[in-house]
Every structure is written in C-alpha cells, then in structure tokens.
C-alpha cells in the first residue's frame, strides 16, 4: 500500500526540523571545554568547503566550466565581493564558458 503523500511530507519535514533544533534542547550554556570550542569553530568552514568541492565541478555541463567557476568564485570572495556578487560571477562564468564549449 502506498503511504499517503502528505503524511510522507510532514514526517520528512518534522524529522528534518528535529535535527535543526536538537542542539537547542541539549545545550543550556556555552561549552567551556577547549577541544569542543575549537572543534565547533572549524565546523562551518570544513562543512561548507567539503560540500563545495568537488561538487561544483560535477554540477555543471562540463567539468571545465565548474572548475572555472570555483576559481573565479575564490578570487571574487578573496577580494571582498559580496555574497550575491560571488554567486553571480560563478553563474556568469559557467554560462559564458558553456556558450563556447557546447
């Protein structure tokens, strides 16, 4: 028997929310332990870096345009472009390159 699709959606949404707020229910004050503090400091950078590469190279029509978007994105962010501008530069890089490659 096929499960009701709306039940499925609500269960998926609720389980995802539980993961988001789990730490909020567990933690009452900042952790003093030096290792944990340091660990949590690096979590965002490592997570986002791992999610970006090599996924960005695989997301595009050809790996070359993805790799170019990565380099342009790093340079733009390095020289202080805003979130929005970095995203736009990456998109434009892929769009323009793939005009020639395809």
């Amino acid at each position, binding site marked *: 028997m096929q*499960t009701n699709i709306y039940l*499925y*959606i*609500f*269960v*998926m*949404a609720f*389980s*995802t929310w539980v*993961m*988001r*707020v*789990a*730490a*909020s*229910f567990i*933690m009452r004050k*900042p952790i003093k332990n030096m*290792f944990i*503090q*340091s*660990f*949590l*400091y*690096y*979590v*965002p*950078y*490592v*997570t*986002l*870096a*791992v*999610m*970006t*590469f*090599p*996924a960005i190279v695989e*997301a*595009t029509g050809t790996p070359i*345009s*993805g790799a170019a*978007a*990565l380099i342009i*994105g790093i340079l*733009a*962010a*390095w020289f*202080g*472009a*805003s*979130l929005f*501008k*970095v*995203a736009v530069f*990456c*998109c*434009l890089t892929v*769009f323009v390159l*793939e005009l020639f490659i395809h």
Partner: protein
Amino acid sequence: METSKEIFLKGYRDGIPIGAGYFAVAFSLGIAAREYGFNAFQGFLASILTYASAGQYMGFALYATNTALIELIILTFIINARYILMGFALNQRMPEGTPLRTRVLVGSCITDEIFGITIARPGVPTPFYTFGALFAAVPLWALGTALGISMGIILPARVVSALSVALFGMFLAVIIPPARKDKAVGIAVFVSFACSLAAVKLPVISGLSQGNRTILLTVLLSALFAVLFPRTADGEKIEKGGARDAD
C-alpha cells in the same frame, strides 16, 4: 544598537542571494520530484516545510519506492546530521540564560547557507536575523520546486547548469574571507577541499552518500584542526599557557 526590525531586514537582504541560488537548485529538485510522483502543490508544500536540499531529494526518492516511514525518519536523521553540529555551533555562541524559545527559533532556521551567513556575523546569533534570511530564501526554494515540477523541461540545460553553481558561489563567499584573515581557517579550507576530492575517488568512502561523506569529513577534519590550532568559539587563539589573544 540595531533594532529588531533592522536586523530582520538585514537578514532578509542577505537571504535574497541565497534565495536566488535556492531557486535554481530547487528547479532541478523539482524536475526530480516530478519523476518521483509529486505534483507542483505537493512539491511546494514539501519545500516550504522542509527546506533541506539533499534531505528532500532523498525523501522524494524514498516516497517513489514506497519506503516505510520509520526508514524515512532514520535516513532523514542521517542525511541531515550536519544540522546537529551546526546547531551546536550556533548555541555555543549564545550566552547562558538564553531562553529555549530563542535557541529553538534560531535552530529552526538552519540550512547550510543560512547557518553560514549567521555564523559569519559577529556577536550572538539572533532569530530576527535568521528569520529575515529564511523569509527571503525559503519561499524562493518552494517556488523553484513547484516551477521545476510544472515546467522543468522548458528551461534550457545551459541556464540550469549556470544557475546550479550559485549555491557554491555563496559557500565560497562565506568561507574564503575568513580564510584570508585567519591562516588556520585557510589551511582548514584547503585541506577540506583536498580530502573531499580524495573521499570522492577512494574506494569504500566514495560508496557513502554525499551527506554521510560530508558529516564524516566534518567530524574528522574539525577534530584535527581543533587539536592543531585551538580556538575559542569567537575565533580567539588559545595560547599554550592558557592566555588568549584576540587576533
């Protein structure tokens, strides 16, 4: 001192580029959702309630194979396990005595990108900021999903390809400026890139889902850097003698 309204609007503004990226990615999610038997309304509902990319993609696929709800719950927990770590990182920045309500509201807004911009802001995370970002980004995520389902075939492949890197561009905008300022973060980012590439190529670990690879590498590498370059939650260096200097 900024008012709550100003902080909300700041979050809303910062959320717009995230929403633009979401829109593009949601479009391709929508194309998949249609294959898995979701109509535009159901896709919109799933996206506005769940707002989790990899988790939703998996959820849609599980629905198509009529997987049991208990399995859906367990797999959703596993694929979204990084949200727990992000929740800890955000709560670590909140002082003792912060009401549970505030903690839960901030936590409820966690997505990879909203977490990224929230943690990049100095000071204590506030729900006004995170909800501002959420209100800008999530409707576009849901709209993108619905449009992907209803007219996914119309958009040219090259446009989808170009839009699909928007999210990664945003990730770079979050991690690269701190990497420039703080050498330890720079090394962490570079090593994470290298290990992530290796994890995709190496046997066994490449067999894991992308979400599981992400969480595994996050735990291992963050622990490694915590040992090599200790920091407080605000990024202050911890010297050997215990003295701290704000760098």
